[in-house]
């Protein structure tokens, strides 16, 4: 029964990550991405997925997709029908599932975040509907596979499990909200394990949308730089296997890290612009710390939302300055969107994986494109890969509509 559930007695269980899959423009898999961030590589290049000649900006963080599906219960013809976004989701889920060594079951919840599902198929549907109104060939498949719930069901079919599927569409905070909601499901006793993550693919509609807002950088995406002039879009997916510590230990699973805090808040200021002082960002970081029973002094690294737009970064800097208090002048902050772009619904989950990499490998992933930090930033903006002691990392994700989410992860040792 989804409601009511039997009330959990005692303190909430600890929640650990036992599998993480990731795909970004830096490459497919944990290893390729960890190496990329350790080297501070930038994987933004000219767009090939659609013709950007009439767009103001012509670069993005495109993913090189493999030509074949990893071995799952799906067939090759399923892969051919899928949208680009679904393929990235399956690839990330496969890596996480394999790493965790999970077995299918009938009661495994899944929580995903996305902003546009299979938008490329939606675009193809619309183009054919307009250009050839009488032609229905291929349209039913496009309708089905465009929808986010179909991509979720593809994951269920790929790995043969069942359970409640929740898809959160909170714009660019979707991935972080998904991971946070999965964490809460475990803490509230709804399940012993949850598959969670976020994903989004580049599409012409969304690219044109950000370009129309003049939110894309016509030069180079430089989060927290004094001369920043916009973001770079990217694409990708990350999937995490979360389970209670007790469950993970009972099966001797390798633990990659622990999620210890989650906060979410809403910014009612404007549909696309954050409150100038970052009130909701501050509230989500504060709430995450409260849920983790941590003070800002105990956080060793902040993976900022840091899109590179003038308005986001100044609001987030104000929020971090206020939240960090006395700690802020020594608190390392970076935005990894400088390397892979903004992955929208995938960003929050991918950045959780980046934090896991930082915690496991004890380094600070950089804002690789930074030239001169904005004086608004009272904190050090990390501009090159740096060895460091990292016990706790906080990651921020903010989105259109005022969706704000923060997660805190702990090193597992």
């Amino acid at each position, binding site marked *: 029964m989804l409601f009511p559930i039997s009330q959990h007695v005692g303190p909430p269980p600890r929640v650990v990550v036992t599998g993480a899959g990731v795909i970004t423009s830096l490459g497919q898999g944990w290893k390729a991405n960890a190496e990329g961030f350790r080297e501070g590589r930038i994987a933004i290049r000219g767009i090939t997925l659609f013709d950007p000649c009439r767009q103001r900006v012509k670069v993005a963080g495109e993913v090189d997709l493999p030509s074949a599906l990893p071995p799952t219960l799906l067939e090759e013809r399923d892969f051919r029908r899928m949208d680009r976004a679904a393929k990235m989701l399956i690839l990330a889920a496969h890596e996480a599932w394999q790493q965790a060594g999970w077995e299918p079951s009938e009661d495994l919840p899944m929580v995903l975040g996305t902003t546009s599902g299979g938008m490329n198929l939606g675009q193809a549907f619309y183009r054919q509907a307009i250009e050839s109104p009488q032609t229905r060939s291929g349209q039913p498949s496009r309708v089905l596979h465009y929808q986010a719930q179909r991509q979720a069901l593809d994951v269920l079919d790929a790995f043969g499990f069942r359970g409640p599927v929740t*898809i959160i*569409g909170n714009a660019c905070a979707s991935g972080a909200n998904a991971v946070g909601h999965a964490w809460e499901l475990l803490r509230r006793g709804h399940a012993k394990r949850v598959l969670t993550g976020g994903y989004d693919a580049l599409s012409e509609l969304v690219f044109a949308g950000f370009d129309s807002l003049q939110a894309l950088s016509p030069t180079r995406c430089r989060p927290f730089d004094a001369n920043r002039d916009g973001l770079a879009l990217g694409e990708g997916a990350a999937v995490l296997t979360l389970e209670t510590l007790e469950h993970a230990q009972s099966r001797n699973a390798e633990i990659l890290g622990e999620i210890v805090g989650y906060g979410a808040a809403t910014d009612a200021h404007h549909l696309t612009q954050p409150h100038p002082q970052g009130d909701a960002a501050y509230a989500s970081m504060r709430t995450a710390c409260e849920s983790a029973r941590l003070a800002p002094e105990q956080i060793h690294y902040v993976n900022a939302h840091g899109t590179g737009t003038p308005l986001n970064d100044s609001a987030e800097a104000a929020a971090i300055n206020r939240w960090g208090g006395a700690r802020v002048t020594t608190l390392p902050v970076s935005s990894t969107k400088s390397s892979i772009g903004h992955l929208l619904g995938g960003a929050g989950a991918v950045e959780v994986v980046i934090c896991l990499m930082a915690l496991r490998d004890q380094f600070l992933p950089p804002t690789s494109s930074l030239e001169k930090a904005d004086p608004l930033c009272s904190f050090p903006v990390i501009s090159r890969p740096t060895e460091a002691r990292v016990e706790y990392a906080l990651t921020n994700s903010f989105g*259109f509509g005022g969706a704000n989410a923060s997660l805190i992860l702990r090193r597992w040792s």
Partner: protein
Amino acid sequence: MSQPYVAGCGVVSPAGWGLPAFRDALIRGEPLPAKDVTRPGTDRPMRIRSVPAPSPRPPFFAHPRLRRTSPIAQYAVAAALEALGPDAAAVSSGQASLGIVVCVMSACVIYSRRFYDETLKDPSTASPLVFPETVFNAPASHLAALLGSTGINYTIVGDPAAFLQGLALAADWLLSGRVESCLVVGAEEADWITSEAFNLFDRDVIMSEGGGAVYLRAESEGSRGVVLAKVTDPQPYTRQVSRRQAVERVRKQITNGSTQDLLCDSLHGVEAVDRAEEIVWHDWHGPRLSPRKIFGEGLMAGAAWQCVAAIDALMQGKCRTAIANVVGCNQEAIAAEFAVA
């Protein structure tokens, strides 16, 4: 508190703006008239059941965030405000913490189609005012802005069954003390492209639009109230479990009610679409309501209408228990049970 109370409901439907018009249409039981909408590129019109223009125009239409927004946001806000009633002022003044769950399937389809059309013609002139209105959570954001609510706010995407998951999520937030009250809203807007997409699978389904809201609170304010008693496990349609099997699994989690208990089902009156639900629920002994037969396929709004119809029947003393059974179009089946406290 073990069961959240329903403190209010709100509806926008092809019958009009507000619960009274919805209730009257349910009592009449006649399918509402459909109208033709133009489908570019063909002279074959598409049939939809649309929401009539409000009269008088609700004051919230003048709010800066809602002047240019799409119909789905207007439906969501209108239903939410009706459900909140006088509590809207308490939320706005910060006296009550409110969670918001907005559930959508096709969501902001009108502005999405318009923006992509502009992009195809010339992306350099595509409107920056339209694009932000295309995101899934635009209606939830406008609602939060209108209410001044800064609490937790999720937009859930899925087929219509997801509305009942939204109810369970709200109940969980209330039980855990995360919020004092929570709005669960389902809303959709109709467009020729959605109708065309659905008509690829069944030409007899008539799409519609509107919104529905259920306002849940942790405490009862009256001596008699309606509670959310149960939400079954959602049963996804997968390769291993067919739609009919999923509906059967849901049915097993709902006890066979008395002859007085109400079933608000998701039947359309279209055999191919209804088959699984017809077979599995054929032996229901109590009265039944089928809002989709009257209002059309409102997707997430349709699931909200089912719940509002169930709650309204309980509030009017027509039954002691009411089930909303939602057989989603392409994701899952689920049911919720409401009861008089």
